[in-house]
């Protein structure tokens, strides 16, 4: 690890759904400046881990820290206020609200926010995402790729220190996928920290500085992409599918 500030940490996380093991003694640390690809076969516990680290799910045991503060039991909006943003595996937008309103919601939850400044910021975010021309469209009328971009925009309005993106490339046209990758890289260069979950290995390898691999609820590899790709345990996990 580089010695950068620790943004989010999960320690000894366990989560079971009845007889199904989702996370087992899972340790996961996100440091400032990371661009982590979180991969693994279906059912390896990636989304469960994100749900726990963003406050949407309580672990059976283990601890969560955001910015060094223990945050177990706090509701998800507190995590958002502390700078932890996330997108969802299946895009979840405010469908009958306009694109602009979708961005105003997170912007206006921030303390001391003023409406005029938030509107300005929202419009700048839409321009960054090349979506300024659809600001008055209802979110449900956007294409699938545009909805993914809007969800990214909604995360950005929180001015987060870390963004968890759950399958941002799923079902996205290659052209739009490339644009998403460029936006993420640009934001990373500006200082944002990312954890990206996806099955699109090409995109993950293009983006990631660090790869974390999960299988059957546990972490089986964590390191630079080249090192992880050569890891026998990783290969076995994927082939064993």
């Amino acid at each position, binding site marked *: 690890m580089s010695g950068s500030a620790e943004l989010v940490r999960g320690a000894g996380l366990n989560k079971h759904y009845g007889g199904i093991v989702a996370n087992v003694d899972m340790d996961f640390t996100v440091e400032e400046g990371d661009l982590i690809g979180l991969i693994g076969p279906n059912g390896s516990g990636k989304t469960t881990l994100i749900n726990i680290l963003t406050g949407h799910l309580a672990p059976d045991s283990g601890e969560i820290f955001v910015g060094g503060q223990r945050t177990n039991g706090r509701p998800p909006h507190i995590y958002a206020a502390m700078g932890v943003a996330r997108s969802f595996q299946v895009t979840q937008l405010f*469908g009958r609200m306009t694109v602009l309103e979708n961005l*105003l919601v997170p912007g206006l939850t921030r303390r001391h926010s003023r409406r005029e400044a938030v509107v300005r910021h929202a419009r700048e975010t839409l321009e960054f995402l090349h979506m300024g021309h659809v600001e008055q469209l209802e979110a449900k009328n956007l294409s699938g790729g545009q909805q993914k971009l809007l969800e990214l925009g909604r995360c950005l309005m929180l001015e987060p220190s870390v963004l968890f993106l759950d399958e941002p490339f799923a079902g996205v046209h290659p052209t739009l996928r490339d644009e998403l990758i460029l936006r993420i890289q640009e934001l990373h260069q500006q200082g944002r920290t990312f954890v990206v979950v996806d099955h699109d290995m090409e995109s993950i390898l293009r983006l990631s500085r660090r790869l974390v691999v999960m299988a059957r609820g546990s972490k089986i590899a964590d390191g630079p992409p080249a090192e992880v790709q050569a890891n026998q345990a990783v290969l076995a996990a994927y082939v064993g599918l």
Partner: protein
Amino acid sequence: MRPIPLAIVVLLTATSLATAPLYNSYWMHVAIIAMMFAILAASWSLLAGYVGLFSLGHMAMASIGGYTSALLVKWYGIPIPVGMVSGTVMTLAVGAGIGWICLRMSGPYLAIFTLGFAEIIRIILSSEDQVTNGMAGLRVTPLFDSATRLPYFYLGFVFLALSLLLMGLMVRSRWGLFLRAIREDEQAAAASGVAVARFRILAFAIASAFAGLAGTFYGHYIGIMTPSVGGLDLMAVLVVMTVSGGIERLPTAVGGAFVVEFLLELLREYAQWRLPIFGAILLLTMRFARNGLLTPFWLQFVRLGKVRDDAAPGIQ
């Protein structure tokens, strides 16, 4: 609101108020009842339309407000305005409590729970006849010692105007955006930083408080409170008023209340056939105009005088 529609609303309102002394007493009564239902419809639209919390306990809140005010005035001789404030505060608290209990409920589960709550309230009020005089009704001290209904008409208008002003400020503020976000997707709202639990409880509390206010006004106007005020029949009428007018906007909910209340009176000669007629209106609305029958007219009305599409964000 743009200048032209605003001017029309102000003109119509001023004309109605100025010519009120000329109204036939019967139709003035209908207008007063319509204004009471308008407060109920607008506040229920806040809860069910803006936040998506389909509560069937709203008339029970009106009943609680009315009985609270009536009993406090009767037992302790407090001034009626103090009683009315007390009734409103009581329903604010009860609404917050129900909102807290219902935090994990939505859709049909919430509807059934609040239906059960409403029935419990009605049965308690019916059974505790030593306190409430049961089904015979509790005599309520009238607000005004007046030969005409005019003071009630003007007060009803003031309550309606104030209620719409306060609810309007709320829905046009960031709170309004948060409430609509909760309706659309609670999980995404939480991920966006919205304190979902707090706003659900707040919505229940505020909507219930306005229902309680309407209930206190009703009691001190009509002069009697009966358990049937909180019953399912009136709740069904409220649903028809709000949904057929337009559940997701305050003005259309208010419009629905006025139209249905006046239609109920105009169709009085059809006796019990009125209710199937309104049931049919509700079915047709849900099938062909889910946003409400008045919504298209309202959207056209507020656009009067518009030159270009420069709608400000978050304003409906």
